[in-house]
């Protein structure tokens, strides 16, 4: 009798951790589903194709930025400069548009990589803590972008406008680009030596050093990638806006990106990177803000609801201690 009961409870105990483990791994997917369901039921015109296009297009910059952010966070770092890098990219794009849109985009992306390299060098070689190194860049690079382009500039370059507004088979080009970048980053993280080294460094830096990993070079590269991706996001956002706006482009996007990464289950303590969940995290936050806007909630409510949802999502995916 007593034995039976204890067996029964043991079985429950075996089942439960599995459920927990599942929620922990896929909680963000579940949250996205729940939010979709809510919208299908309560938001008019939600199922229109154009709506999905809108959401995907709007989330693109955050997705691209958070891919880089995920890599940085994987090394136990953080990159606050991404928003300013977007602004710099917007400025560079419009400055060099005279040479054609492709060269302009190239210059912008290189500019982003250079800023990333500066941050990476401060972190890897000088040993400045990532949050302050990139905070200095956040302030300075936004200023630089504004020095280059003091105010919003509209452009009429057809190539760049097409980049921001055309579609292939009904899917906006910029969404396709974001998807391709996701696949590339996924590949880098899962299948390359570099990807393994990134998480190893985040997991234990001194062990990685003693294991002969090129720690400094990997760190530098990670920040370069983050800068590069942020610049790309800036270019795409600029193309979509049909104007270069270094003043407000990418403001506070670092917080959205970090949230996406963390909601996706990548720990801020490094050593682990979840690429697809990061994208899901970004989608979750986008859907959430769309839902709140569509239901016309005042700003105060919007912010409070966002706070609760972030907490709930991270709570579900948090790492449980064994006891």
């Amino acid at each position: 009798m007593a034995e039976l009961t204890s067996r029964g409870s043991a079985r429950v105990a075996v089942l439960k951790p599995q459920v927990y483990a599942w929620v922990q791994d896929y909680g963000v997917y579940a949250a996205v589903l729940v939010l979709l369901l809510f919208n299908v039921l309560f938001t008019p015109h939600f199922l229109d194709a154009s709506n999905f296009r809108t959401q995907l297009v709007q989330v693109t910059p955050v997705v691209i930025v958070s891919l880089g952010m995920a890599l940085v966070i994987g090394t136990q770092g953080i990159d606050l400069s991404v928003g300013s890098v977007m602004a710099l990219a917007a400025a560079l794009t419009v400055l060099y548009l005279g040479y054609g849109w492709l060269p302009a985009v190239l210059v912008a992306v290189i500019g982003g990589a250079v800023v990333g390299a500066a941050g990476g060098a401060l972190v890897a070689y000088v040993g400045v803590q990532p949050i302050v190194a990139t905070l200095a860049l956040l302030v300075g690079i936004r200023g630089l972008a504004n020095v280059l382009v003091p105010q919003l500039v509209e452009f009429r370059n057809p190539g760049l406008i097409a980049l921001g507004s055309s579609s292939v088979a009904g899917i906006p080009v910029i969404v396709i680009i974001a998807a391709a970048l996701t696949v590339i980053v996924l590949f880098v993280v899962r299948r390359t030596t570099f990807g393994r080294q990134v998480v190893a460094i985040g997991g234990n830096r001194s062990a990685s050093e003693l294991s002969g990993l090129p720690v400094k070079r990997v760190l530098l590269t990670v920040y370069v990638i983050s800068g590069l991706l942020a610049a790309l996001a800036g270019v795409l956002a600029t193309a979509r806006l049909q104007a270069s706006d270094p003043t407000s482009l990418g403001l506070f996007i670092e917080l959205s990106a970090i949230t996406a990464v963390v909601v996706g289950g990548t720990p801020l303590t490094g050593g682990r990177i979840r690429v697809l969940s990061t994208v899901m995290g970004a989608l979750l936050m986008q859907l959430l803000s769309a839902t709140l806007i569509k239901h016309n909630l005042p700003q105060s409510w919007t912010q409070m609801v966002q706070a609760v949802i972030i907490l709930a999502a991270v709570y579900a995916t948090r790492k449980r201690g064994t006891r």
Partner: protein
Amino acid sequence: MRRTDLAEQTDEPVLEARGISKRFPGVLALDGVSLALRPGEVHALVGENGAGKSTLIKVFTGVYRPDEGRLLYKGEPASFGTPMEAQRAGISTIYQEVNLVPMMSVARNLLLGREPRGRFGVIDTAAMYEEAERVLAGYGVETDVRRPLRTLGVGAQQMVALARAVSVDARVVIMDEPTSSLEPREVETLFGVIRRLRDSGIAVMYVSHRLDELYAVCDQVTVLRDGRLAHTGPLAELDRLKLISLMLGRDLDEVRSGGMTRFSRDRSSENRQGDGTRTPVVEARGLTRKHVLDGVNVSVEPGEVVGLGGLLGAGRTETAKAIVGALPLDGGQVLVAGMPLRGGSTAAAIKAGVSLLPEDRKAEGIIPTLSVRENIALAALPSLGRAGVVSEAKIDRVVEIFMRRLRIKAASPHQLVSELSGGNQQKVLLARWLAVRPKALLLDEPTRGIDVGAKAEVQALIDELAQEGLGVLLISSDLEELVEGADRILVLREGAVVGELSGDEVTEEKIMATIAEQSDG
């Protein structure tokens, strides 16, 4: 006062486990284990790596909650929610991995939670430093107690942890492998402490893989095997072979034929001894770093095992680190196969074929967020793929080979390395270094925390590798291991080589004598 009460009723267990089970995902770490700890006894807890010793201790001290079974403390049912509760109740523990705060000063670590107070209940720092110095002097540690703990060697840190645990007013003191990085003199100090504790009626639980120590200090023994209780009773009733056979779960005869250590060094054999004619695989010349190393010369020839001996803090670890470029130097040079090595770069050293198995496996060894598989493959990654893309098949093969060869006990290669038992983590690290096929391997306490069976395997492995032409620098606080394993031994003291023993001179007595000789002079 209360202590004397306790001493009178010695046969009542002070701490008791009844039918404890603890499950982790994929492993049943403890399976119905019962054990009783009585006041005034020193109780050995032994078993292979992963047998469940540390888990049992953590159940006792409230780190883990058992899935089944009960704990009794002083005859009453007890369940400690946190280590703090256990400590408050009088159970003091030294955990297997040094668990102190590296950035805090030695004194603050030692006295955390019971700092001497001055006026207004504010901490009296002067008194704190004084007291810390006094306490540590009792354990043979003489150091500036204001420095951050991390600047001490692992051995010294272990002594601080020990001093901390013992100086708390405790009924039960639990020690999980306290001697794994202590050398003989410190071990003697520790034994003195344990005997003192026992005589004052305190129950001591003692975990170690070093059998000599068990026989030197323990009264009772409990053997765990695969999470189950294999034996419990007075230690004197068991001889070493019987004990080992209980631990391993093998026949007495089988164990007997295996011998005690697996080193089969034949020091007279010409081809293996360093005769100074061949180019050393690795040679360090005049390694110097202020206050730490003072012109150390070391050379290891292919197929040679060179031992590094010395007291705690003699600079063995620092020598090894300096050789692989993990320690900035003020002077000196390292040559690999006659070619000078670029200083300050571990990567360059590894590329040239020199690797270091670090002493501090938690801080410098494992990557806790990664699986066993990724940990093993880490250093060899560049060679396990093409054009920067890893080959999963190649990794699988390498991982499989080493997990089998080193008998790494894990639920699967994909288990997180941080979930393995201490000894198995050590084996994972060994595997990491063997996977890069080095020409010279610097092993800093390679068998630290490894069980008797596995230790013999590792030792046999070192032998085998040396025979294949690998040069090995062996650092061990276990003199027996050093003597049996090394062809030649360099004795360090205060960062300088003070003696070299080879051939017949390689004995424990000689090493001790060399150290002592120098300290007198």
